[in-house]
């Protein structure tokens, strides 16, 4: 059980203040430099909306790196007017025979930049302001003040310690008693006192009495056997149930970052879940839809959490995993192109239904509208993907018994639902009543 780190409010406030200060100073700088000033903050949001798909500040992507782009343009002897023209309609600039425009066009695989006629000159000024003086990288996390978490772990530790100490004290007490007894006896013997034997010879010891009582023996044995059988059965039923199975994958893919932090819809990547029996592990080209432009992990502004750090999951670690993806898909970052040298990723399958059980994702996802999380658990919180549900037949059947069929607006169900619900005298039919418990529906 892990507790969420309670972040220090103070450090947060401090961080924000620092950021504001830096931004403000950047603005001052740009005002000094630029001909017409722009708002770097506005520029940042504009940049992210319009440019970030193809441009980064300090890295060549589909298009060139844009940090201090105005300076480099000036080196070419071009001014801001040229930039306005280019951004608003780059193909026409190329068509006009502009030398630098054509050079750029050819250098970047003849991929013309999308025209942005909607951007005003002011917008472009803002963007340029942002590119000229980008806000500093997010403040590295101030060393977390070990408040709550440390305390809690201390507690856990001390509890055990106390218990251990108690046991020790207890044991010592017992030993003491024993020793006292022994010493007293010795003293008594030395004093010539004969310690009388108790009337033990008269009374049969309890174990003997137990052995002699056959009925009791029988009952006890029976109870023992039944209990044993119960536990053996319970154990055997666990064989082959891999609930909690969380294998190490060739690429450390974090559902928490993708589905949780970035809120990517499950079916964006697992698209075949809508139409096919398998949910489909996304092919690498789907990864590259985003990772073409996301080549490094910057994490959340506060930096990796305590937990991540404890497991070595730093930003560099995640970036390294992205590089693994690039290697597999054959993406050359420096040229921003595919080398054609690809190697499929051999993921370890987490959910293994036996071959004799037929399960269809689209039936559940598209027709029944079941949330992915119903069976797969809080995937958006899973750093390492694990099997959340037992995937046993009993589990399937329970759900079929409890879940109502989603019939609204589905013409297929109209007639059968009307007739069946009348027959069973219910308002809403469960999947089981619809025939979802029949053997042949899943086994053929």
């Amino acid at each position, binding site marked *: 059980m892990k507790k969420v780190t309670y972040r220090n409010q103070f450090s947060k406030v401090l961080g924000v203040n620092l950021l504001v200060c830096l931004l403000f100073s950047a603005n001052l700088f740009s005002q000094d430099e630029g001909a017409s000033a722009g708002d770097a903050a506005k520029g940042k949001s504009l940049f992210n909306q319009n440019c970030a798909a193809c441009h980064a500040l300090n890295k060549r992507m589909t298009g060139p790196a844009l940090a201090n782009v105005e300076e480099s343009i000036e080196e070419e002897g071009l001014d801001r007017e040229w930039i306005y023209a280019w951004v608003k309609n780059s193909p026409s600039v190329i068509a006009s025979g502009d030398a630098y425009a054509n050079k750029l066009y050819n250098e970047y695989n003849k991929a013309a930049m999308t025209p942005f006629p909607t951007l005003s000159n002011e917008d472009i000024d803002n963007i340029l302001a942002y590119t000229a003086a980008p806000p500093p990288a997010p403040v590295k996390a101030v060393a977390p003040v070990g408040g709550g978490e440390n305390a809690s772990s201390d507690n856990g530790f001390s509890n055990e310690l106390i218990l251990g100490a108690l046991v020790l004290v207890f044991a010592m007490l017992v030993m003491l008693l024993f020793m006292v007894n022994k010493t007293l006896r010795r003293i008594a013997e030395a004093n010539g006192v004969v310690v009388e034997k108790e009337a033990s010879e008269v009374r049969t010891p309890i174990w003997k009495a137990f052995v002699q009582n056959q009925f009791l023996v029988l009952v006890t044995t029976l109870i023992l056997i039944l209990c044993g059988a119960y536990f053996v059965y319970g154990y055997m039923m666990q*064989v*082959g149930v*891999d609930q909690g*199975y969380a*294998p190490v994958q060739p690429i450390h893919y974090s559902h928490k970052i993708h589905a949780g932090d970035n809120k990517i819809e499950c079916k964006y990547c697992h698209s*075949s879940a809508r*139409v*096919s*029996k*398998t949910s*489909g*592990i*996304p*092919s*690498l*080209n*789907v990864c590259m839809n985003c990772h073409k432009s996301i080549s490094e992990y910057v994490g959340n502004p506060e930096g990796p959490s305590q937990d991540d750090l404890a497991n070595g999951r730093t930003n560099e670690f995640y970036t390294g995993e992205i590089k693994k993806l690039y290697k*597999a*898909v*054959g993406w050359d970052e420096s040229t921003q192109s595919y080398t054609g040298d*690809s*190697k*499929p*990723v*051999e*993921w*370890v*399958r987490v959910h*293994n239904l*036996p*071959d*004799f*059980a*037929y399960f*269809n*994702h*689209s*039936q559940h996802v*598209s*027709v029944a509208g079941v949330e992915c999380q119903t069976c797969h658990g809080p995937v958006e919180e899973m750093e390492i993907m694990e099997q959340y549900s037992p995937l046993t037949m009993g589990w399937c059947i329970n759900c079929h018994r409890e879940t109502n069929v989603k019939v609204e*607006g*589905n*013409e*297929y*169900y*109209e*007639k*059968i639902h009307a*007739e*069946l619900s009348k*027959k069973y005298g219910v308002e809403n039919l469960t999947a089981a009543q619809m*025939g979802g418990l*029949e*053997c*042949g*529906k899943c*086994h*053929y």
Partner: protein
Amino acid sequence: MASNKKYWKSEAELNPNDSIVETLRHNEFVQDIPVDDFLGDKENLASSSTNRRDFLKYVGFSTAAATLAACEGPVTKSIPYVVQPESIIPGVANYYATTIANGYDFASVLVRTREGRPISILNNTDSKTNGSANARVNASVLNLYDSTRLQGPTLNGEAVAWGDLDAAVKMKLGSLKGSGKEIALLTQTYASPSTKRLISEFKDMYGSNVNHVIYDTISQEAALNAFEKRYGIRALADYDLSKAEVIVSFGADFLGDWQGGGFDAGYSKGRIPQHGKMSKHIQFESNMSLSGANADNRIPLKPSEQKVALANLYAKLSNSSVGGELSEGVKAALDLAVDKIKKAGSKAVVVTGLDDENAQAIVLAINEMLGSVSYNSNEPILTRQGDIKAVNALIDSMKAGRVGAIFIDGVNPVYSLPNSDEFVEGLKNVSLSVNFSTNENETTSVSQYVAASSHYLESWGDVEIKKGHFALTQPTIKELFDTRQFQSSLLKWMGSDKSYYDFIKETWASSILGGSDWDQALHDGFYVKSKLETIVDDVIAPIVVEGDSEASLSPVPLASSLRALASASNSEMELVLYPKTGMGDGQMANNPWLQEFPDPITRVSWDNYVTVSKSDAEKLGFVNENVANGGLDGSYAKITVDGVSVDKVPVIIQPGQAVGSIGLSFGYGKKVGMKSEMQTGVNAYPLYQNFSNVQSVSIEKSEGNHEFACVQLHKTLMGRGDIIKETTLEIFNTKDAKDWNVQPVVSLDHQEVAATSVDLWDSFDRSIGHHFNLSIDLNACTGCGACVIACHAENNVPVVGKDEVRKSRDMHWLRIDRYYSSEDTFEGDNIKKDEFDGLTGDKGSLGGFGELEHPASNPQVAFQPVMCQHCNHAPCETVCPVAATSHGRQGQNHMAYNRCVGTRYCANNCPYKVRRFNWFLYNNNDEFDYHMNNDLGKMVINPDVTVRSRGVMEKCSMCMQMTQKTILDAKRDGRVIKDGEFQTACSAACSSGAMIFGDINDKHSKVAELKESDRMYHLLEHVGTKPNVFYHVKVRNTEEV
């Protein structure tokens, strides 16, 4: 009046003293399991080195080990695409329209692919040209995954690169250009406009000494010649049998492979009685063929007698006379045929499969004379174009050293030529021989270069099946190996960098499509030119023979043909060579599905054999007997034609075989490049002298006994009758249904009540939701067996091999029972004989005399596909101790394999004997070296159906996976399911319309309508099982029952 005929499945059943057949009738196994032999043998037990303690130790250890091993689950890998193709969604099937054109089978088909691999072949129902996939076409997908396929080109057996091969060929071609030496292309019939253009361009490039010889393994020379002489085009007349009211056939197995096959759909349409009418089919033939088995009147005749009969038919139709001796019975039959033809006029059609140009010419003349509406010479069939004269000339040239290079594609002449020795000898004089082949075979072993060629599912191609009817072949998977198709190679050698795909597209754009859309044609898989266009393109007019047009009724131009036919020489024993339904010309012999496919007539799998009539067999001393394990044994024969003899040919005594004739099928006896299990049967091609399928022959008994894997006595119905119900058209039309479709009665409180009214169980309400029923029309079923193979492919039915089939352990979920029938008793015969009155009619002596001799001489035949009947009150369900088999609301009888513990009670209690037990693990087991034990062969497995393990029962699921898929698709789209959407593998494969599947709760569905039909009956209705499969009474268009 229901017929009270006696039905029998094997000739042996007619012998009342055959104890084995008697035992088989009541027991599944003839022998008891020899437990006593083993346990009773004290000495053996005592001397065994393994004593009881050891045994317990082993058991204890292995149990513990197994338990420990089971604790650790295996790690499964899941490997997604790097770049997923847009059209592929894992778990969803894609369908592509393509065309098989392997030189023997030509059909427009749909290929179902999963994750990019073809897994089954379906009918392309949109294509009306040649839209039915037969058993072989259905099985052809497995040849793609044949583990013995050639994986790359070779030179004298050593692997070689394509580049080197191309260089060598180009050099040779260059040096041969203008040298006067022949460059020969020996190929199958392509009927491909693009290949034709390609070869002519090849000719343009390498000079006139390029000689393209087309060779059909099984020749249609006579029919081609006759048609060519009459119409000026080397093709075969097309027939639409759905329009025919009378069909008279002389040795034409048009439900088999006659003229390339594909006539069964039309035939069946006419066979279903509608408004009191159905077509009349009279068949004169020697071997019992599928067509003969379906005929109303079948007259067994030797081929020479058939010729005389045909000549007489022509004479009678044209009111003239011609000589030739015929027996009384045949004359009577001819009279009947003439009578019917004259009545039907243009609605009659005559066909022949006689390998005789005169006979073929006469038939063309008759059909023209009749103006038969079924006869179509304007759009002739182009799928056979072989030329024997050219083949023989090529062999002569080769022997004389006049051939510089030979390229062979699609044929295996060393195996299939009767004079293959000469071919091999000639090949030695050819300095370059390149053989395109998918597998090693007899010809590749003597060729220099073996160019590994692609399977049709990996190739591009086009074909003109009939004049004006085009079809396209498109690859459904990338080449699995380093293979290349013949046409691509030709393009390479011509120095072109065009792909064959582009080449086809050019051809189609320039001369076929005429403005239509290429993409649409490719999507459909076929393209039919409008009639007008065809006629404008190529006018096919009859070549005017003197007086032909106005004197078509006069026999003058055909007089010589007639005379020749009428005086056809009669030899003592005539051999008729034929292609078997499962094997065809033998090019798919390495296909385990086809090997295990039981022949529809003899029900023998894994073999070919010589079929002999009962009386000839008695004369020659041949016997068929059932031995103790229930298997069928037969004598061996030695067959000699013209000094060439084939020894050790197993003999099957075939009811209905014409006396004085024997039959032997092509396609077996292949040795080179075959897995040892597939090297079955004997090669009949050496007997195919002069490419004539009729030979004068001598036959004698040979030593030894052959063990057949014959399923005809397996899975018997334990003596319960009324399996087949049949009646005649007359009774059907005139009498009440209760007379000819008798409903069984049972005794309840000493009263006879309808069996269906009494029941042990309460009925469930099945009126809500879907309720699936399968209708099987015994009139439309021709017994072709396409459904059997389709079921194999869809349901991952394992192949068990010859030995296991012999032990009645075949796994076919769907079997097609074949019943012979004749008069019940000889007393019946005597009464009948006394009452003979006239030739035809109820008491006619026609056919009657034949039957009197012996019931097996000319029986009637009925085919009955039997699969799990999905009884609503299923006997199997009540006896299962673990509830592994249960019933669903939709009418299907479910089978949960993982629950089954293999007690086999269910199989015991099934009255229809449709449950199959997995005696062994058939997959991943090298003991069963067919296709499920290697990675390549496993690619054909349908991922939606469980592959069963050892020790469980299995049976037809009514294609649960298909019905569920249909329902799911409808749910997802939120719509109601239309009739026709529900299909099973067998009903989808059935092109004859015999099997119709659907939801009877949908009152407008076809199957609901069929269930209300008068002809509907259930199998063994008196048992009270209430099946969800129903049949339709067979109606024969005969006068006598």
